């Protein structure tokens, strides 16, 4: 095996983390996990909780699948991946319910969304099934971070422009913007604006990096 001699944080391994943040972002380039990006970006707090949960589930599931990759029969590999994801999500949810009840209340609605999050299955299928555990773990981390920053960026703009708050704190009211005749944009809290915000991020990203633009 060639990667036996490879250092833990070799150039290639670092790329596994840095690539998904930008050039190979799961949301804006791979266009995975869009559904959850629309559903939970009305406020910052749930978006962050969601990002942390995905981080845990994706990196652990990627490692587990990678460890089992030589044992999994190819015809039922998708089922096996789903079972691993669902088990992890349920375990996390049960533990949270018992010991960190408030977080679990925050999270409850997203559990189903994590199981169906295409990023997780996409990475297990594309990476975990073909690479070793350490690389899979890094790939899981990288993709979760890539997912997280888009989610948090979208949630930031939607909460700020839609409700005038950040983490529930009335920012715009405190700086006195309402006295100048400013009003919250109710459109921002509706799902279509999440899609448009993601679209704007994709647009900016492609202006900066022309390589990403598909040739006609």
């Amino acid at each position, binding site marked *: 095996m060639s990667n036996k001699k490879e250092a833990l944080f070799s150039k290639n391994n670092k790329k596994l983390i840095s690539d998904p943040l930008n050039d190979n972002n799961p949301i804006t380039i791979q266009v995975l996990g869009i559904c959850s990006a629309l*559903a*939970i970006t*009305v*406020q910052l707090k*749930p978006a962050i909780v969601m990002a942390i949960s995905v981080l845990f589930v994706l990196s652990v599931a990627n490692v587990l699948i990678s460890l089992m990759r*030589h*044992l*999994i*029969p*190819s*015809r*039922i590999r998708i*089922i*096996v991946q789903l*079972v691993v994801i669902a*088990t992890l999500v*349920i*375990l996390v949810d*049960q*533990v949270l*319910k*018992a*010991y960190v*009840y408030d977080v679990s209340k925050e999270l*409850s*609605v997203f559990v189903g969304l994590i199981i169906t999050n295409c990023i997780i299955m996409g990475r297990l299928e594309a990476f975990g099934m073909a690479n070793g555990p350490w690389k899979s773990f890094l790939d899981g981390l990288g993709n979760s971070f890539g997912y997280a920053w888009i989610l948090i960026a979208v949630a930031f703009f939607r*909460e700020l422009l*839609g*409700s005038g708050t950040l983490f529930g704190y009335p920012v715009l009211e405190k700086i006195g913007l309402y006295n100048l005749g400013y009003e919250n944009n*109710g459109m921002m*809290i*509706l799902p279509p604006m999440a899609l448009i915000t993601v679209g704007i991020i994709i647009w900016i990203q492609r202006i900066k990096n022309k390589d990403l633009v598909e040739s006609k």
Partner: protein
Amino acid sequence: MDVNKNSYTLGFAAIMVIIVAALLSIAAIVLKEPQERNVELEKKQNILQSVGVEVSREESETVYYNFIKEELVIDSKGEINEGIAFDVDLAKELKKDISEQNLPLYIAEVDGETKYIIPLRGKGLWGPIWGFIALNEDLNTVYGAIFDHKGETPGLGAEINTGNFQIPFVGKTIFEGIEFISISVIKSAEEDNMHAVNGISGGTITSNGVSDMIKERLERYLPYFENQNPETKIEKEVEIIFSDSTLTDSLTKIQEESYE
């Protein structure tokens, strides 16, 4: 080893299912107790919140009986049944026929005043919503209300569990004269409208769910409210005296005897 043989695939699936099932069952059994305790403490916390007592979940256990003086179970005719309100599972009661439902009622004492706390439960957009509404001694004015939900959309329907939504309920009335109106959640409610509060933009279905829930639940308690109202109480007692057959029997007996 050929991992794509049929027998291997079946065997792999079977073992995987057994391992996962065992893992999840163990987790469910081990964690059941702390989970249930959390739910119970939260219910106590919510009940206290509805009468304006803010305590942490852990404290709610000890503070609960300082405020909650009576826990009644009422039937559909407004009579008091045996039982403790806290043990009534409203989700189960709602599935029963209206005439057979047990209606929990908490009576609290806050600053020397009696408050009646009525538990609520209804349907939101994605799942159940519930809450507690506290009425003043006049059984008309709202003293406080709190709501919660299982899985309403964060930022939209889920806003029903925030103060912005709950505080406007305070001071609203459920009766107009003697007519039961309830309190509705509507779009741009006027502040002087005594029977409406402002809904949540983007959360219309959840808002409607709250309206329906309050109306449906409070309606069940109307017979009890009537019994509590002093005027109707006297009328009822007079009625009972007259309808008491043994009494009328003995009256006629006395009359008959005196004729003889």
